[in-house]
């Protein structure tokens, strides 16, 4: 082999080796997480959008895909360990565990149960006792709104027989405006906002002011906690940072949400503003064991579960939020 050719070959080899070294040094691949959200894209998911946009998930090596399918699907998928996480309503965790789905609640995002009873001001329904002898419209006799409604009555000693509850589907705003019912049950950050936007003077009874039940939060499953607790820590840490940033700077969070919610204009800032007080807590994401007991009592009273869970404490944990509080 002639000398120039040998040099050329050597140079090529060195170049190839250099390329290989370069690929090896590239950043580790992000773990893809499909996260069932439980509702359509909405500014109330601002903490998650903020955490993506500011790179908090990426810093933890996570890539989040928002999945806006129904919450029951999310629970079943997490229960079967097909997905590691989902956002669900608290009472759903108890219902799921009653059917042996090994889901565990790791971050209480909504500190307040977000259901409220809304009525026109002229109806004079400003506290639960005022509902006696009145008609109340519910989307249906199932779901978080029904649980919230029964919890409210139960906590305030109003018998369900004293109130004329009606199923009206998801037509709360229309039914109330048309005067078909005296009050409606809906989400505290949705129906009241819509009614006020239409210039209606309304009274709002927040379920959370009367009873502390477990609301929306993040679940994982027992397998993920046992085999990959670090993954849970990473997701919780990044989410709490997004939550803290949203609480500290709602305007910025709303601007960020516009990239994630198609056609979002400034009119829905009120939804985010109505949500913020429900997220605030001395320890972000903390879940209170007592609220689990109360939620379970309401589900028992409603007949949605036949007996108390043998292991209610297994349904939730504060282990992951404790060490991952965002720095001030």
């Amino acid at each position: 082999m002639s000398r120039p050719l040998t040099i050329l070959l050597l140079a090529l080899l060195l170049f190839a080796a250099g390329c290989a070294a370069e690929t090896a040094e590239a950043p580790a691949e992000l773990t893809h997480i499909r996260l069932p959200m439980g509702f359509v894209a909405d500014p109330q998911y601002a903490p998650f959008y903020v955490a993506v946009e500011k790179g908090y998930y990426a810093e933890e090596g996570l890539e989040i895909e928002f999945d806006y399918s129904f919450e029951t699907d999310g629970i079943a998928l997490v229960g079967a360990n097909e997905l590691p996480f989902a956002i669900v309503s608290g009472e759903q965790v108890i219902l799921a565990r009653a059917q042996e789905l090994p889901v565990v609640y790791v971050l209480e995002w909504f500190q307040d149960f977000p259901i409220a009873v809304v009525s026109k001001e002229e109806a004079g329904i400003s506290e639960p006792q005022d509902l006696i002898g009145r008609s109340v419209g519910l989307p249906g006799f199932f779901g978080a709104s029904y649980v919230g409604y029964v919890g409210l009555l139960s906590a305030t000693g109003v018998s369900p027989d004293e109130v004329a509850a009606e199923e009206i589907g998801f037509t709360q705003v229309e039914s109330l405006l048309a005067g078909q019912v005296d009050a409606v049950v809906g989400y505290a950050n949705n129906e009241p906002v819509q009614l006020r936007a239409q210039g209606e003077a309304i009274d709002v009874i927040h379920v959370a002011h009367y009873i502390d039940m477990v609301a929306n939060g993040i679940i994982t499953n027992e397998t993920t906690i046992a085999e990959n607790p670090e993954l849970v820590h990473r997701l919780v840490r990044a989410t709490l940072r997004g939550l803290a940033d949203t609480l500290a700077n709602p305007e910025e969070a709303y601007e960020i949400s516009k990239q994630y919610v198609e056609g979002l204009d400034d009119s829905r800032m009120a939804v985010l503003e109505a949500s913020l007080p429900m997220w605030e807590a001395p320890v972000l994401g903390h879940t209170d064991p007592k609220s689990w007991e109360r939620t379970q009592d309401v589900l028992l009273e409603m007949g949605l579960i036949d007996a108390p869970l043998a292991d209610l404490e297994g349904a939730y944990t504060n282990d992951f939020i404790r060490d991952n509080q965002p720095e001030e």
Partner: protein
Amino acid sequence: MERLREQPIWLTTAISFLLLLLLWEAVTVLGGYDRFILPGPADVGQQFLIVATDGRLWRHTLITVSEVVPGLLLGFGIATPLGYLLAKSPLAERLLSPYLIASQAIPVIAIAPLLTIWVRSTFWSRVLVSVIVVFFPILINVIAGLRSVPTELYELMHSLRASQWQIFRKLEVPAALPILLAGLKVGATLSVIGALVGEFVQPKSQGLGYLLVTARYQFKTDLVFVVLLTLAAIALAMYGMVALLERRLLRWQENE
């Protein structure tokens, strides 16, 4: 195979049902599915006993049946004369059929919520969904049935100076009946789906659709299966009744 064919029908049905149960059990065991993902036949049977003995299943079933039956009868009652008109009048067919065909491109689930607003009665809005679903297959079969009557037979009737009424009663009805009844069979099974779609979108219904939604909410997949099997049983019963009717009405065919 030959020996199996000689057995009475109830025995072959029972064998096929048992095989189905075995296959189902095998899938749940071999697939390693959790009970809330795919319950086995035993779980579903147990849940069936619970809701059958506490009366819940019958209460919800009766409500659904009370929507299915008028849905099918009304759908049949509207589709049959309209089908006759379309088969007999080229002008009517030219005017109406584009819209009738185009209407089939509209998914009923999309307009069902609107129906509940348009029709004030919540019961009739659910029945109407069922009517819409059964209408088209019956209509098509009425037209196909009438078109299947050979021209020679019309010519024969004319040569015998038969009146329009006689042609209708002695030729068209008997000739179109087999195809019309086939359409009614399809409609009978579809009417159950129609009523269920109506129940999904229409509150105030306590039918099987309601039981299905609450079972899903409580993660009682075994109860979801009980509801699905009950719906299948209703569809089978409806189909069976039309088949009985068919056997009575078409007895003349067997004699030929």
